[in-house]
């Protein structure tokens, strides 16, 4: 899961990056509305954690302009103003959830997972497809009921493929999911992870379309 954090406080931003990283997410952090807008225009994210009071304006304005552009990405507002009227204002501006500072890191992670899975049309944290079951909240996986252990990157690739089974993900799509901006990407790393994944969940579960990308193989084919 790739998340964009728009927060200008360096300590909190660092805490979110590391903390949500521990919960299996890949994070990119920007410190202003303008940077947030630019990041959303160039990259794909599963969710946005947005601070309201930013140096170059209000996060609410950024949110409203995103919604006006038709951007449907789930947004969680993070703010020091958590009185009822503020919360109503935030939700009405197009936020999917609202969390007042200070907050519990685990709760934030759970809420981010919740808004992003609702975006994908799922109501629970379990994803199941063709005998493979993922628990996105606990970062665990099972094949035909037998638990298997996956690395963070392997889990990220598998959950990306299983979020939209049947859809082909190119190598660069998957790389974008795996790595934030500052992270170094090795050229064959996706191939390596997919290879390892196949070893753990079974060769036939992931299909390679040569020159295009990967997808989950349907049960019938």
């Amino acid at each position, binding site marked *: 899961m790739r998340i964009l954090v728009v927060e*200008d*406080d*360096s*300590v*909190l931003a*660092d*805490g*979110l990056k*590391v*903390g949500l990283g*521990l919960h299996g997410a890949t994070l990119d952090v920007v410190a202003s509305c303008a940077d947030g807008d630019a990041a959303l225009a160039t990259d794909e994210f599963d969710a946005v954690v947005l*601070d*309201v*009071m930013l*140096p*170059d304006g209000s996060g609410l304005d950024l949110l409203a302009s995103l919604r006006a552009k038709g951007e449907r990405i789930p947004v969680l507002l*993070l*703010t*020091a*103003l958590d009185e009822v009227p503020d919360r109503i204002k935030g939700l009405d501006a197009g936020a999917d959830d609202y969390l*007042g*500072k*200070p*907050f*519990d*890191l*685990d709760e934030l992670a759970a809420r981010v997972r919740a808004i992003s899975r609702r975006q994908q049309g799922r109501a629970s944290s379990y994803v199941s497809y063709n005998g493979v079951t993922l628990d996105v909240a606990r970062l665990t996986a099972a094949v035909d009921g037998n638990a298997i252990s996956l690395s963070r990157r392997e889990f990220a690739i598998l959950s990306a493929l299983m979020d939209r089974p049947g859809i082909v993900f190119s190598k660069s799509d998957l790389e974008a999911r795996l790595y934030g901006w500052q992270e170094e990407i090795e050229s064959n790393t996706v191939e390596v992870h997919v290879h390892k994944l196949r070893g753990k969940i079974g060769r036939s579960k992931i299909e390679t379309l040569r020159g295009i990308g990967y997808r989950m193989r349907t049960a019938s084919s």
Partner: protein
Amino acid sequence: MNSLKHKLFFILVVTTGLIWLAATCWIYVGTTREVENVLDSRLQEAARMVLSLASSNDVGSFQKDSIAHADELLTYEHQLSCQIWSLDGRLVARTSGAPDESLSDNRTGFSERTIQGEKWRVFTAEDPAKNVRVLVGDRLGLRKTFVADIMRGLLAPLFLIIPLLAFLIWASLNRGLRPLQTLAEDLRRRNVDDLTPLKTRDIPVEIQPIVSSLNNLFKKVKEAMRHERDITAFAAHELRTPLAGLRTQAQIAMTAPDENIRKTALSQILFAVDRTTRLVRQLLTIARLDSESDAPLKSVNVGDVVEEVIDALPMSDKNADVTIDPVLRNTIVRANRESLLLAIRNLHENAVRHMPQPGTIRWSSETTEDATTVLVEDSGPGIPREELALVTNRFFRGRNRSSLGSGLGLSIADLAVRTSGARLRLRNRDDISGLRAEMVWDIRSPQRPANAAHTSRPYWVRVWLRMSGRSKISEAPCP
């Protein structure tokens, strides 16, 4: 009850009544005179008529029937009485209502006489040629009754009209004062927080000034409240964000499996605690400046203070290349030394914090006839034009923010400079990129605001805030 409507009603009814009364008196006097004139000429007329009738006959031949004739002529509602006397004092004839006694002693003309307790008004005409004297009179009592009847006729409708008039006055007042009532009702029904402007359409000219000044007041209070809310919001943000950072980092330190992540988290916690400590120190400084603003002003050597500030700086803030113009040693200002020290320290820290290394900071002063100016110039990025007016607002953090800042430095500097009896002027340098902060002591007008912390808020705003239970916020901008 002090009611405008009741007062107006009372005034209108009383004045109308008085005018009616005056008019009635006037009519009474006028009518009485007129009635007298008319009746007098009737007496005269009648006397002459009887005299002319009598003239054609000898006095001696007057018969009862001629008297009866006269009687018929003169007994118009039996008001007039007539006597015909011979000049030698013999009663020749009289009408039935007339007394036997002579009505008058007068030879000719008008006279008044009381006969048997009744006052008579009499006209006497005589004709020596015919040996006849005719006296025609009427009772004054009857005249008075006649005038009273006329007055009664005039006054009777008045007593009917007065209640009607009162009712009409009351109704008109209600109608006329309705805009005031509507305004009062509108204000009474209003929530204390409701500061929407009153509608100005269809408002009479007389209360237009009230409505527009109320609307003006509402606007100003609204702005003051919004400012107040902004400060609260900024304060909440600046205080809660570091706490959120601390909590997050603490949770990471507790749960991270990796030793390195834990160590990084702990160092972040230390950093955040340092920063929050600075924030708390600044808030306490503001509170102190707010309360100390009326400390006495003394002559202070600015050069000494600047040196003291720079000597006391922590090592981390000494990287900049600092120049102190020698002229500062001879610059003496009237200031509160503690506040001046705070102002200089905050301006210096602000310069250091916002400057890329290595930078230069230069302290100097300029003295003219009008003012003494102590100024500090740095080689940092300066302040964007549109933010210049905002940077002294509490918790305002501009685009060129430092990671350690909380948006209080310049607002403390501003407050401290004002407490030192000067004013702070910020502008970007003309020669190179950088900020030029000036503390200006005006020589011509050495007055100092009584309470520098609160002068920005007018008296009535404070009163309003206190009335609507916001005094806590207004007295302590940083909850």
